[in-house]
């Protein structure tokens, strides 16, 4: 879908992006992660030509992006940013309709699309359509911002720290919403963040950027179990790397198929991290596990969690 080939960029003599090669496949939720100043935002903005690159090629859908008009390229890519940037003098509906309007969709189609998107983000259309941005909470504004980015059903969604300015509860809700939308729509999403937990939660693939280079690209699980070097370990958080690794795995997968044993039961869809946490708190070495439909699925033993075969690095 998007391919970076030997991309370099300097800004005032300093290398911001250094010989970057990266392929983003269709349907991926790719997270670019790095410290501030690592060049991750610059890389994102190169995709829709908000930032020009000095050398190398970027291909979109097999064509070099320089061969597109910037406007045509951007109209095919949704764009959501941390500060949202809603038009303060336009209603929610008109904000969401920005790109469809630029594309000249008929009014009836736009109206339908706006309502569908509001519903998707759990904002009642009748209530929110005519509101102005300043009448919304921060979380609602960001929902509208993401809805606006999705409005014209773009091929790619580019998101620059979209949830960075939100409180933890709102952020978690929006992360879940994004995950759901990605699953349902199968869109290619490129998301920039500096929050490792957000990256591990959302990504199908994480790309760790440092000083304009790719340090490691891997699935969240692989990133934790096989960090490429000390920089990655440092970034992921050396001390609780194992805890994060546990949080990415489902408790059901490690359970033994056994009938219910007396004692505690774990909530459906819980991760190994929650299982270990509960077992440690209640001083037990086994716990009942439910499957997604809430039926008994087996018993998880602490010994199995810490058994040699599945541990980090093993």
């Amino acid at each position, binding site marked *: 879908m998007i391919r970076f080939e030997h991309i370099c960029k300097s800004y005032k003599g300093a290398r911001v992006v250094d010989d970057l090669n990266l392929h983003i496949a269709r349907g991926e939720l790719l997270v670019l992660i790095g410290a501030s100043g690592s060049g991750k935002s610059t890389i994102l903005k190169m995709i829709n030509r908000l930032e020009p690159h000095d050398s190398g090629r970027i291909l979109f859908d097999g064509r070099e992006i320089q061969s597109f008009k910037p*406007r*045509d*390229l*951007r*109209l095919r890519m949704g764009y959501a940013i941390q*500060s949202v940037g809603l*038009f303060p*003098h336009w209603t929610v509906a008109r904000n969401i309709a920005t790109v469809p309007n630029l594309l000249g969709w008929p009014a009836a189609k736009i109206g339908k699309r706006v309502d569908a998107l509001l519903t998707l983000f759990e904002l009642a259309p009748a209530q929110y359509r005519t509101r102005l*941005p300043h009448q919304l909470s921060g979380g609602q504004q960001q929902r509208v911002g993401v809805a606006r980015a999705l409005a014209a059903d773009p091929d790619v969604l580019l998101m620059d720290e979209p949830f960075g300015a939100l409180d933890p509860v709102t952020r978690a809700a929006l992360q879940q919403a994004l995950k759901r939308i990605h699953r349902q729509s199968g869109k290619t999403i490129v998301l920039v963040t500096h929050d490792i937990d957000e990256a591990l939660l959302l990504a199908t693939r994480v790309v760790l950027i440092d000083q304009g280079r790719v340090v490691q690209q891997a699935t969240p699980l692989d990133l934790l179990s096989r960090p490429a070097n000390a920089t990655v370990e440092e970034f992921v958080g050396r001390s609780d790397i194992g805890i994060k690794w546990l949080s990415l795995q489902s408790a059901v997968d490690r359970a033994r198929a056994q009938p219910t044993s007396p004692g505690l039961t774990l909530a459906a869809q819980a991760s190994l991290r929650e299982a270990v946490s509960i077992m440690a708190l209640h001083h037990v070495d086994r716990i009942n596990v439910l499957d997604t439909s809430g039926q008994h699925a087996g018993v998880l033993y602490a010994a199995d969690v810490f058994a040699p075969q599945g541990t980090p690095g093993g």
Partner: protein
Amino acid sequence: MRIDPAGVLLGGFGLAAGLALPLVTVAPNRLVSGQGVSLWAVGQRLGPQLEQVTGQDAWVADVSSTALALALALVVTSLLMLSLIAFWRKAAMGPDGMTVALGVALIPALLLLAGRYALHISQNESTLSRTALGSGFWVMVLVVWLAVSNALQRLRAGWALGAGVRAVIAGCVLAALALGWCDQLSLMREFANHADTLGAAVLRHVQIVVLTLLPALCIGLPLGWMVNRSTRLRQWLLPPLNVIQTIPSIALFGLLMVPLAWAAQAWPGLAAMGVSGIGLAPAVVALTLYSLLPVVRGTQAGLAQVPGAVLDAARGMGMGSAQMFWHAQLPLAAPVILAGIRTATIQTVGLAAVAALVGAGGLGAIMFDGLFGSAQDLVLLGVLPIVGLAVLLDLGFEVLNRLAHVRTGGTV
């Protein structure tokens, strides 16, 4: 009981002005300064007249005498009440509503009393004698106006109601003037003497303002846009504009006379267009220069305060520069740009008076006639329309401002 301190203060001032300062001054002719006549003395003199006036047959006399009687009663009672009202919490309309009602009645009533007294003097003393509005009148009008504004604010009256109340007061005053009830006041006699030139002067004044604002906007708006894009240009352009503002207007008019006269001589085409060292040309050029700073500053500040995130998002979604300008920058900057144009307009209305010194005409010409002839009421005749013009234009801009804010959804 809660006391409104502003109300007490204003009521006290009004009462003191009514008691101590002259409502009108009477002079034997238009050039000598007159003797003050207090509100009390006016009442004493006019009181016995009431019966004679009621005897006349014309309906105008009937109406005017009734109005006079009402005015007399009103002025005395409402001045008293205005001063007490701040203490009076349980009135049916509430003290603030009462203040507004009294204020609406009081200002025309004061004018009516003064006008009536002027008529009385002209009938009983020399026709050359002049009755002018005294310091007591102006202080009382000012105090009442402030009391009404204060009360409207306390009532949390909407903008429309406030404007309505002020319009009613202005309407009553204009009606009293139009009906000829104040014709013998010195100000109105000057008006009668200069009626033919006043209309032309107002038109000329408006003409100067329009001729100034057109180039000021045509140059200032694009300049403001450019200044916002380039810091270098800002550093080069704004200091000279600031310096221009500090040059006294008379000096600037004078400075422009020489180059303009020279230019008119050098290029006969310019002279044919009416450009010369005196008259409209130096006035319009100078006033345009003065107007540039508020327009450029307002435009630059307006564009600069458009949130960067909005523009970032707009560009990222595929808007072109022109679309961003019309859809985002202009509507979001409009209130601040409008404020700059408003300042420039009001400033030009005032400064255009001084332009009379270089022969540009306008209301300033009447004002300077009065100043040089030490005829105070002629000065007023020039100044009052200038104030009226400024107030009207300001009102117009306020309406525009409200519209612009409604569009951005911001708070006013």
